[in-house]
């Protein structure tokens, strides 16, 4: 049911070290609005519901079609992309917007997702193809394999899985679900497989796969429907085999 105006409660924070505060806004309803267009309305006239002039709300977004992951935030307490959070699909009442809680806040709704990118580097989430000469085409992959791998390549490092994971937090060294799923992806690639051991080495240490607690929240919140927990099962098997090899062959 269309509403006359949209009420928003936004958690604001001026700088990484500033204290957070709540501000309320009201913007006129228009057809097909999403959370980002609400934020753009506020930017036009940054005045709170109480009539106090404030700074425009800061947020990050890029693609506006749920493939870049940069506009991820908590909408009504649940992590998701704000571009696909259509106002008419949200329940009645004020819309609450907060930055993700597991990454350092840059300003207002923008967070720094660097820890996730660092983990991707740590687990070697790429396929080494650079050499001093042309390495030629890689081995072929069956259609079935390609299909199973494709779904993992849809990860946009938005951080939803990390936010919802009770094991990814300041008290734990766990690297979180997203980087682990990329190990599953690159270890399954015919060329990537050649460096599978390096990746397994990285996730067999502290903060790696063994720190997963199987709450399986990650797979529930993933906007891309990536079967993250299947990756953990497969990696569990790979690390078991790797460990037994180290134990009995080395």
């Amino acid at each position, binding site marked *: 049911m269309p509403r006359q105006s949209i009420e928003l409660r936004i958690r604001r924070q001026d700088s990484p070290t500033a204290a957070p505060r709540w501000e309320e806004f009201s913007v006129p309803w228009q057809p097909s609005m999403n959370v980002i267009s609400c934020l753009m309305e506020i930017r036009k006239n940054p005045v709170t519901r109480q009539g106090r002039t404030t700074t425009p709300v800061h947020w990050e977004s890029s693609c506006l079609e749920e493939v870049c992951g940069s506009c991820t935030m908590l909408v009504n307490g649940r992590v998701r992309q704000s571009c696909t959070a259509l106002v008419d699909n949200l329940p009645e009442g004020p819309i609450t917007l907060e930055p993700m809680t597991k990454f350092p806040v840059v300003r207002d709704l923008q967070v720094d997702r660097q820890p996730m990118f660092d983990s991707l580097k740590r687990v070697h989430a790429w396929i080494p193809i650079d050499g001093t000469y042309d390495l030629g085409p890689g081995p072929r992959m069956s259609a079935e394999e390609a299909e199973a791998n494709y779904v993992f390549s849809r990860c946009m490092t938005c951080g939803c899985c990390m936010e919802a994971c009770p094991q990814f*937090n300041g008290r734990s060294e766990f690297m979180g679900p997203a980087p682990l799923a990329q190990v599953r992806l690159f270890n399954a690639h015919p060329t990537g497989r050649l460096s599978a051991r390096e990746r397994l080495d990285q996730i067999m240490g502290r903060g790696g796969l*063994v720190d997963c607690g*199987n709450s*399986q929240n990650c797979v529930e919140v993933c906007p891309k429907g990536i079967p993250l927990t299947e990756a953990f099962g497969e990696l569990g098997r*790979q690390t078991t085999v790797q460990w037994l090899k180290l134990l009995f062959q080395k």
Partner: protein
Amino acid sequence: MKVSDRTYFVLKRLHSLTGVFPIGVFLLEHFYTNSMALQGAAAFDRAAADLARIPYVGAVEAFGIWLPILLHMVLGVFIATTSKPNLERYGYATNWMYTMQRVTGVVLIFYIIFHTFQTRFDPAYLQSPSPYDFMRKQLSSPAMFWFMVVGILSACWHFGNGLFGFAIHWGFVTSRKAQLRVARLGLAFAVVLALVALNSLLAFTGRGLYPDWITKPHGQDHAVVMDGGTR
């Protein structure tokens, strides 16, 4: 305490393994012995005495029960402290299972310490001529009875649900469907275990269910044979 990456991996895997072998296996044996209480005081006391006559009983107990439980406990506390539950935001079934696993684990620390102290060090128990009598007297206190109920339910849940994590950690199940199947099987197993264990607890208070169709094969009254008709 800092440990190397490889040690960390091995410790975490040992935590997962010890939960099933030997702790889970011991739990099953323990419930089996407890169920002897359904056949009366003499049967239970005999079963308890038989356990004490196992060859190398001290070593079996130390390396098969105490040490694995101690390891599982210490690592479990570490795991619980690195967790930040978020049920209020993400109330999925598996998240409940995750959180309950940690809650029951902490409950079990208190329960097992109490239970071990009592049955290994408490003079009142050690000097009691009949373990059955001791338990019967103790369980006449409602507070103790309910404490035992909480302990049993926690143990059943922790073991049944633990099988789910065990199967994924070691890579026995990979697909989502198979994982959820293991979760359901594990919890169903926990329910059956809980019924069996609670029934043996009731047996000490003289209220154990002893339906003929479960317990008497071929219409023979085993209870009477076992217990000289004193049940």
